[in-house]
């Protein structure tokens, strides 16, 4: 990574979450909410398939930011707001823009967006470069 400057855009990251990953993430986080692994139940609540966990979005926001910043970076804070749900198998894109650089601290505006550009989650990540 070159020295970041406010306004820099990070390279986009494209990915999907599989149904297996959603099940395993629910299992390991002891989250038995059926919208995450029972497609019939998810449909009864108005969702087209099993729903990506909010905390899995948080992981995605964070992990791509840390990967972009490199091995000498450390997460300080992450916050996000869920705007609309994403479901298993849906193509998603991680986007990030450098909001501020203050000494060894970098703040990013981050989002996960759907194929049509609709944001699923928007938020911010603050990293310390150590």
């Amino acid at each position, binding site marked *: 990574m070159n020295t970041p400057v406010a306004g820099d855009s990070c390279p986009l990251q494209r990915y999907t979450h599989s149904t297996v990953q959603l099940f395993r993430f629910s299992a390991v986080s*002891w989250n038995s*909410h059926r919208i995450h692994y029972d497609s019939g*139940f998810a449909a009864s609540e108005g969702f087209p398939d099993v729903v990506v*966990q909010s905390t899995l979005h*948080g992981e995605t926001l964070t*992990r791509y930011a840390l990967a972009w910043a490199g091995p000498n970076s450390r997460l*300080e804070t992450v916050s996000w707001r*869920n705007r609309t749900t994403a479901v298993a198998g849906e193509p998603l894109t991680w986007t990030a823009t450098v909001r501020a650089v203050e000494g060894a601290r970098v703040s990013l505006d981050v989002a996960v967006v759907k194929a049509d550009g609709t944001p699923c989650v928007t*938020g911010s990540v603050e990293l310390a470069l150590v």
Partner: protein
Amino acid sequence: MSALDEVLARAHRLVGRWEDEDCGTVTVKDFCRYAAALNDADYIRRAREQDAAGAPVDAPALFLAATMSWEDGPPEGELRPDGLAARESPCTEGLPVRQVHGGQSVRLLRAPVAGSRVTASRAVISAERKQGRSGPFVLLGLATRFTTADGTELTAVDETIVVQEALDPAGAA
């Protein structure tokens, strides 16, 4: 009184009442299984090498924040119809409502190390009735503070839960 009115009334009675939960002693296996669910093979390799060398092993950054419950149970028969346990669903037990996460803010103060005993302190901190594009909802604000046995703060989580009327009230409660 509507289901959302009841959620709001219950929440207002709980605001500011902190409860502690013993999360137990976190282990390298806990961390590695969490990393596996994120397809993070590098973390697993590094953690196992550190553990074999007798070095401290830090948890993945959001391990504490992402874990929804530290309880042993409950068994399936005690879950709500939506799969949530009563404790994971404050203020909504038995009501015809549905809920999703609104958002979360996580502040990392110190990484939990394998072998540490962790306590989670939780409280409802706010409850508001709102009007959205798809109708009325209640926005619950929850706070969780994770600490070690000596009181060192590890992770601070503030989150919101969106509670709406059930699409099928007859089958939701």
